[in-house]
C-alpha cells in the first residue's frame, strides 16, 4: 500500500482552556498528537497600564502595579517603589527595607504555592493543590493582618510603607514558618517524587541554558536550566545582601537539565530559601520609622531609571522616565511572564499536546502580568 498522506491541523487551545491559568490562546499546528508549532496569542487581559500611568502621579500608580501580577502584588510594588526612590535619590529607613523583604519573601512563597499547586492540578494531582492553598491562606491572613487586604495590598509606598507591622505579626509569622517547613517535605513526598508526576514532567519541554539567555528568560525558568542567576544575589537591592541563603538551580535530577521537573523543583526549593531569609529578617529587624520624610507631591528631577527585581516569575523591570513633573513621562513594565511566555514555541515543538499542558504550567505565567 502506498504511504498514506497526512495533513497538519490547526487547533485552538484556549482562550478559556483551564490549563492556561487565565486567558491565553495558543494556536497549535499539530501532526496527529505531535505539536509542530505553537503560537501564543495574548492581549485578552490588556488594560494598558502604561497609558494609565502617564495620567497619574507617582503614588497613584502603586495600586495599578498590584494588579499586574496579581499573585505577587508585593513584589510588583517593591520593584516600582525602588525605581521611584532611585529616581528621587532618597534612602528609606532600614526597618522599611526589612519589612519589604519579609513581605516580598512571604509573597514569593504564596505565589510559588499557587504555581506548584496548580501545576499538580494540570497534571492530574488534586490533593497537593488543596494542601498548597491551605498554606497560602495562612500567608494571606498575615497580609490581611498587616495591611487589610488579601490580594492587592497597596502596602509599599514610595518612601516607605502604608502601615507598620501590627503587634504580634512577628510571632504569627514565626508560627507559620514552624508549621510550613515540614509541609514542604510532605509536598515532595506527595507530588515532587511521585512516579506519575515525574513521568509526566521529566525530559519534557527541555530548555537549554543558551537558548534561555537569548530569550532573556529569568526566574525559575532560567534557573531550571542550570544558570545560577538570581537578582537578589547578582544585582542586589534592598537588604538581601545581609542574609545568608542559596540560589537554587536545576540539576537534571530525574531527567534532562532544564526540563519541566527542574523548573518545578526550583520553585519548591526556593520556598525553603525564602523561609531562611524571612527567619533572619524577623530576628534582626531594627526599630524605626516606616516612612521616610518625603514631600506629599513627588517631583523627581528630569531623568530616567531602569530598575529590576526578582519576582517569583523572574526579572520585573520598570523603566520610568521623568520630565520633572508630578506625573511620569513614561512607565514601561518589563514583565517576566511576558518574556518567559515568548519562548513557549521554542520548548514545545515536537512534544505531545498533553505535554504542552505540562510545559505551559512549568513556565508559570500570570496573564495579568503578560498583558498588563
Amino acid at each position, binding site marked *: 500500500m502506498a504511504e498514506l498522506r497526512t495533513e497538519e491541523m490547526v487547533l485552538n487551545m484556549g482562550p478559556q482552556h483551564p490549563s492556561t491559568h487565565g486567558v491565553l490562546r495558543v494556536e497549535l499546528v499539530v501532526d496527529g498528537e505531535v505539536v509542530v508549532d505553537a503560537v501564543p496569542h495574548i*492581549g485578552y487581559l490588556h488594560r494598558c497600564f502604561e*497609558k494609565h500611568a502617564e495620567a497619574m502621579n507617582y503614588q497613584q500608580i502603586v495600586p495599578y502595579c498590584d494588579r499586574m501580577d496579581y499573585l505577587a502584588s508585593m513584589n510588583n510594588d517593591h520593584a516600582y517603589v525602588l525605581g521611584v526612590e532611585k529616581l528621587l535619590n532618597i534612602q528609606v529607613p532600614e526597618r522599611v527595607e526589612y519589612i519589604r523583604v519579609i513581605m516580598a519573601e512571604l509573597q514569593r512563597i504564596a505565589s510559588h504555592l499557587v504555581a506548584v499547586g496548580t501545576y499538580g492540578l494540570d497534571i492530574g494531582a488534586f490533593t497537593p493543590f488543596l494542601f498548597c492553598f491551605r498554606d497560602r491562606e495562612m500567608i494571606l491572613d498575615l497580609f490581611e493582618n498587616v495591611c487589610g487586604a488579601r490580594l492587592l495590598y497597596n502596602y509599599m509606598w514610595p518612601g516607605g510603607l502604608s502601615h507598620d507591622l501590627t503587634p504580634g505579626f512577628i510571632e504569627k509569622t514565626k508560627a507559620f514558618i514552624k508549621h510550613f517547613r515540614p509541609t514542604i517535605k510532605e509536598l515532595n513526598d506527595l507530588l515532587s517524587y511521585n512516579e506519575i508526576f515525574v513521568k509526566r514532567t521529566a525530559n519534557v519541554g527541555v530548555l537549554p541554558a*543558551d537558548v534561555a539567555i537569548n530569550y532573556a528568560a529569568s526566574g525559575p525558568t532560567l534557573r531550571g536550566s*542550570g544558570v545560577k542567576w538570581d537578582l537578589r544575589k*547578582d544585582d542586589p537591592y534592598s537588604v538581601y545582601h545581609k542574609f545568608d541563603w542559596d540560589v537554587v538551580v536545576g540539576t537534571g535530577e530525574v531527567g534532562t537539565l532544564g526540563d519541566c521537573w527542574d523548573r518545578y523543583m526550583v520553585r519548591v526549593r526556593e520556598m525553603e530559601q525564602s523561609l531562611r531569609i524571612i527567619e533572619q529578617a524577623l530576628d534582626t529587624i531594627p526599630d524605626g520609622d516606616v516612612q521616610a520624610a518625603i514631600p506629599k507631591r513627588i517631583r523627581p528631577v528630569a531623568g530616567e531609571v531602569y530598575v529590576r527585581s526578582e519576582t517569583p516569575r523572574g526579572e520585573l523591570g520598570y*523603566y520610568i522616565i521623568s520630565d520633572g513633573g508630578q506625573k511620569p513621562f513614561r512607565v514601561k513594565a*518589563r514583565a517576566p511572564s511576558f518574556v518567559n511566555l*515568548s519562548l513557549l514555541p521554542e520548548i514545545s515543538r515536537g512534544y505531545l499536546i498533553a505535554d504542552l499542558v505540562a510545559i505551559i504550567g512549568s513556565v508559570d505565567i500570570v496573564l495579568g502580568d503578560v498583558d*498588563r
Partner: protein
Amino acid sequence: MPSLLKKSEWFKRMNANEINEKLKSGFPEAVVEFKADAVTEPYIVVRPESVRDIAKFLASDPELKFDYLMSLSGVDFNDGNIGVVYHLFSMEKRHRIVVKAKVSKENPEMPSVESVWKSANWHEREAFDLFGIVFKDHPDLRRILLPDDWEGYPLRKDYKVQEYYRGMKVPY
C-alpha cells in the same frame, strides 16, 4: 552554559565610558551622542539605521558580550521623534548599558534586532503595537496586545481614542 564571573572579579566590568569608546572605535559614524551625566544612568544615542550592526557588535565582541536584552521600550520623546531604548546586560561580564535610537514620527522605520536577541521578538511587536514603530526584517510583525483592527498607536503622546470600535462606543 555561560561562565559567570565570580564576585571577586566584578571589578573587571567595563563602565559606560569604556563601552562608548569601544563602540565609537567600531562605528565612528553611528554614535550620535553619549550622555555620561544622565540622571541615574549614562546612555548612548545611535543612528537608527545601524541598530542591527551595533547590536551584533555588542553581542559578539569578546570584551562586551551583551548577551541579555533586559528590556526594549518604545518611547515617544514628544519632539516629533519616537524611538526605542535598549537596556542591555552582560551575564558573563556583568556590565550594563542603555542604547537609544530615535526615528521621526512620519517615517518610523528601523531594523529589527530579533536575529541577535530572540527576546526582542515580542518586545518589538509591542513597540509596533503601541507606538507604530516598524521593524524591518522582523519575522512576525503583528499587533500583540491590542486587537488586529485597532486604529492608532495608544502610547503616542498625540493619540486620540477612536470613538467606535466595531460599532461599539469606546467608553473614554
